[in-house]
Structures are given as structure tokens and as C-alpha cells.
């Protein structure tokens, strides 16, 4: 069973995504803050991280960069999912090390398809 870390401050998103992915045989762990998410990634070594860009304590890009710069987490694929849909946001996310970008709202199947590309 693969583990997916969801970092998002929205409780309902975390819940629905977690429920959905659990239904598809993933172990989902959740964080509502950036820092907490980073430490969780270090401790639990998830197979993939779903990252929101807007977090209460820090910018999603920063989280992305921090995860990439840490040797313990640098290999973990990161998929950004955000309500921001401008080109520059997407490009910036890629620059920071995200592998993919999903614009909210998204079809559950699309999310699943993207995840399956990487794990």
C-alpha cells in the first residue's frame, strides 16, 4: 500500500481526498500546515505528496523547495493542487520541484490518473 501525504489547510478537501484515495487503496496522511507537512514527510516518507499552494504558516512553493532540498525527502514526487490557475503559478511550482500541477476543482478520476503517473 502506497502512502500519500496531503498538505492542505482545508479540512473538507483533506477529508474528501483522503476518503477517495483510501477507497482506491492508498494510505493517506494529512497535514493542515506547511511545517507540519515537512516534518511528516521526513518521518513517514510518503510515496507522494499532494501540496496546496496557500497554507496558513507558509507558502506552498517554500514547502516544495524545502522538501526538495532535504536529502531525506528529495526523492518524493510532489503534485501541486491549487485554485490558482495562472501559467506563472504553474511554472513557478515546476521550478520549485513539483512534478505536476492540478487545478482545483478537479475530477476525482483526474486526480487518480495523475497520481498513478508517478506511483
Amino acid at each position: 500500500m502506497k502512502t500519500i501525504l496531503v498538505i492542505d489547510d482545508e479540512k473538507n478537501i483533506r477529508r474528501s481526498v483522503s476518503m477517495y484515495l483510501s477507497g482506491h487503496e492508498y494510505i493517506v496522511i494529512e497535514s493542515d500546515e506547511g511545517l507540519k507537512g515537512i516534518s511528516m514527510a521526513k518521518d513517514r516518507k510518503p510515496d507522494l505528496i499532494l501540496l496546496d499552494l496557500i497554507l496558513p504558516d507558509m507558502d506552498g512553493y517554500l514547502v516544495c523547495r524545502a522538501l526538495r532540498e532535504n536529502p531525506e525527502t528529495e526523492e518524493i514526487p510532489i503534485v501541486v493542487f491549487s485554485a490558482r490557475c495562472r501559467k506563472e503559478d504553474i511554472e513557478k511550482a515546476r521550478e520549485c520541484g513539483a512534478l505536476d500541477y492540478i487545478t482545483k476543482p478537479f475530477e476525482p478520476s483526474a486526480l487518480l490518473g495523475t497520481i498513478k503517473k508517478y506511483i
Partner: protein
Amino acid sequence: MTTEAPWFLFSQKIMKKSLRYNLFTSFLLILVIFASSNIWSIINFNRLSESIDSIMESNYRSIEAAQYMIVAIERQDSAELEHMFAKSDETVSAFNENNKIFLGWLSRAEDNVTEEGEEEILQKINEKYTEYITSFTRLIMLDRNNDQAELYDYYYTDILPLFESTKEACRELLALNQNSMVERKDSSLKVAKQATISTAVISFVAVIIGLMLVNYLSRNIVRPLYDFIDRTKRISEGNYNQQLDISGDDEIAQLAREFNTMADKLVSYDEMNINKMLEEKNKSDAIVNSIGDGIIVTDVDYRVTLINRRAEMIFKVSEKDTAGRHLLEIIDNKKLFGLFKDVRERKEGWKAKKSEEIEVQGEDGIEYYAVNVRPIRMPDSDDIGAVALIKDVTEFKEVDAMKSDFISTVSHEFRTPLTSITMGVGLLLEEIPGTLTDEQKEMVEVIKEDSERLNKMVGELLDLSKLESGKMQMELQDYNINKLAEYIVNTFRLQAEEIGAEIVKDIPENISDFRVDVNKVTWVVTNLVGNALRYIPKDGSGRIEISAKEAYNKLIISVKDNGKGIKENMQKKIFDKFVQDGSGQGSAGLGLAISKEIVKAHGGDIWVESVPGEGSTFIFTMNKA
């Protein structure tokens, strides 16, 4: 002059000062001179004729008398001698006859005593002749005695000397008068010579004086007239400040005075006009300065000829520094200059632009101004420059930005809950939490459909806010409408077949490329065809046609359907936000608004032609490559 008086009635005042007086006196003087010269000549003629007369009267007659007396006395002497040799009465009567002649001439001579000594000579003649006559009487008496010898003796001793002395006296008279005649002739010649000289001198003097007078008159009358001509010419050239020097008090001086008054009045009229014009100019300056929008006027060489107070404030310049200087020197705003240049050079499209926006660094951040530049046209001539009206649109800009921000924020805020809903719906539909009954499933489908609609709306709203705020980037490329239409036709073919409708394209193969952002134009056509699909008949007669044609530098693209058409009052509104045709079907009504924004961003136009009941044709234009 209407009240012309005879010269002798001139009032003293006019007599003294007037030009007429000058002319009159001058000509009078010339007349007097010539008259006196003539009188002098007449006097001389008279003197000449008098001296001739005096020769005639005083000498000629005496000479004639003396000559006749000599002749008479000689004849008497002959008669005497004859008498001595042959006495007869004839001789006596001849003697007496000549005696009468002699006495006659003597008395004439005595009546005409003119010369000095003439009296004495005549007296002597008289005495001697009397003695001679007496002697003749004695001869006759002696004759009676018939003593021939005595007779001869008497004749030679008494009579002959008397005869000789009388004759001598007569000759004296002759000589006296002859000498005097020569004298008088000489004096006449002298008089004539004098007259010639004096007349010549007087004539010469008269001519000199006449010339001087003519010179004086012409100088006093004609010379001021040249000054008049000169000044009048200058006045006619518009140089009204002309004053003549006034000297004297004659007609010319009066005319000069009136002329000066006239020139003064012209000057004051002129000043009055200038003042009036200045007043009008100040008025229009005040109006221009009071206008709340900025105004800049340039000439054809982009030199600033007018800049009002508002424009000075906007660009932080002062009119003193601007007058006559190049626009770019004063206001370093290339876009503003470009607008003037476009108008001046009649660049294509300057007319179509209602206004352009420029940015100016203000005290509290960037200010936005809508600039409208128009050429200044004069009737019957070329442009004389351009005028720009500069409107502050910062506030609108801010409101617009706020609106866009608001829409953007709202959209984002909507997206998060929408994500959860979508996820939840997905969960349910995939029956992860548990199997659903058919009814439950149907309900979840409804939720899914509407959440999708909501999602689409939010997306469109975001697109629209981006388009409106100009944040949407355009990626222009040359593309062919055939390719685009084919893609659309293929995309919608299945959907059309489902309702038995036909979707076709009618575009010439060799049509020119257009220069567009392909994704956005595809979006527009997709939207138009999607709309059409919703409204065409579902009974198999539905038809949608995509066509395009070239017109000048544009491509005209149309999407035609045979749907129910659009009411006339809706045809314009239909491109506004959130407007639907009232059927309750379809989207949030943002599609056409977005299409309009996209077409506008390409510099094109979009409109609809429709007949209710027959169908609609949506038409838009794009620039050719």
C-alpha cells in the same frame, strides 16, 4: 469748395494764409511785372515816335521853307535881270509872284521856329529881303530914266549884295536846320538803343522772378503731396501710425491736420480691435484652463502651442516652459507622442481608436489617463496640428481592478468548496462508501452536473475578469481558419449527429491566414457553435454552417444556425454579462461576453444578425496576417 467767393471778397484771414492767396499773389506779381515791362516798351516807342515827329515838324519844314525861299529869290533875281534888258510887265509879275511865294515860305518858317538862333536868322532874312524888295522898286524907277549904265551900276552895287546876303541868310537857315536834324536823328537812335536794352533787362528780370515764383509755388504745393502719397501708402499697408508735419495754415496744412486726425482714429480703432481680440483670447484661454480634463494642442511639427492648467498638473510642467517646444521635450511619454504621430501621419486605425490609455507616475502611484487625439482641421486647408483630450481614468481603473480582484477572489474562494463537492460526488458515484440505490445515484448525478456548471461558470468568470483587466496574454500566430473550422466541425460532429443535425464549413480553400491567438479564437468559435447546437431544431432539420471570407485587411467569420433566432431588442444586449435569452437553458451567459472581449482584444468586432423564427448568424472580424 461750395461757397466760392469772388477773389475780391476773400476774407482777410484766408487772404493771408491760403494757398489760393499764394497762387493769386504770385500770378498777380507775374502779371504786374509783365505789364510794367510792356508799359516801359510802350513809353520807349512813344519817345521814339516823338523824336521822329520833332524832326519832321521842327526841321524838315524849315529846311523845305529855306529851299523854296532860295528858289523864289533866285527866280526874282532872274526876273530882275530880265527886266533890266527887256522891260516887260511879265517880268514884274514874275517877280511879284515869287515875292509872294518867298513871303509865304518865310511866314511858314517863322511859324516853325524851333532851333536856337533861328529867330535871328529869320529876322535877318526878313530885313535883307525887305531891303531887296525896296531896291527892286528903286530899280524900276531908275528904269524909267532909261539910263542903262546907271541901271547896271545900281544892280551890281546895291541889289546884288542884297540878293546875295538874303540868299546867304536863307542858306544859314537851311544849314542850321540840317545840322539840327542830324543831331535829332542821332538822339533818336540813342533812344531806340536805350529802349532795346532796358526792355531786354526788364524782360529778363521778369522771367527770373516768374521762374522763382513758379518754383516757390510748386515746392509749396506739390512737395507736401508726395509726403501725403507716402503716408497714405503706408496706411493702406496697415501701418496706421502715420503723422504728417504741419507747417503754416494753408489748405495743405488743413488737409494734413485732417489726415493726422484720421490716422489717429485708425490707430485707436485698430487698438480697439486688438483689445477686443485679446479679450476674446483671454476668455477662450480661461475656458480652456477651466476645463477639468487636460488639453494639449500641437502644431504639425509636434510643437506645443497650448497646454491647459489640468494638463500642466497631470504632466507636472508649466506653460512658460512649454510654449513652442517639442512635445517630447516637455513630456517624456512616448505613448502620448505616438498618438500624436499616428494622427499626424494618418496611421491606419487612428480613427477607430476612441481613446488610448497612458500611464503617468503620480504622487500617490501610477495614474491612468484616457487620451483622445484628433487632428485640427481648417476649412479649405490642411491640418494645422492636433489636439489631445486627456481624461483621468485612474478611478475607473481602480474600480475595474477592484472588480476584477473581487471576481478573482470570489472565484478562488468558490473553487475550494467546489473541489470538496466534486470529490464527494466522485466518491459517491464510485460507490466507495457503499452502494447507492438508483434514486440516490440519480440525485448524486444531479449534484455532479450542477457542480460542473458552477465550476464552468467560475472558470468563465475568472477568464472574463482576466480579459477585462487586460491580464490575459495573447499569443498571436498566423493560422488558417480552414484548419480551425475543421477542428470545430470534428469536435462537434458526434454531438450534432445525436440530434440529427448537420454541421458544415463553407470556406474557400485559398483564404488568407489570420493573425490570432489560436486557443482563444477556437474558444470563441466553440462557444458560438455550442450555443447554436442548443437552439437548433432537434428533429433532424438542424443545420450549422461555419463560413469565412476576406474583406480588405480583415477576415469575416460567421456561424449561422437555423434555430429560433433572437429578438431584435436582445441582439445587442446578448453580448453583455449574465444575459440569457430567457429560455432558461444554457450557461451563465458569460460565453458571449467572453467572446466579445476576446474579439476586441484581437482588434475585431462581433455582432449578430438574426430573424426570429428563421435563425441567427453570429459574425466576427479578425485581422489578416
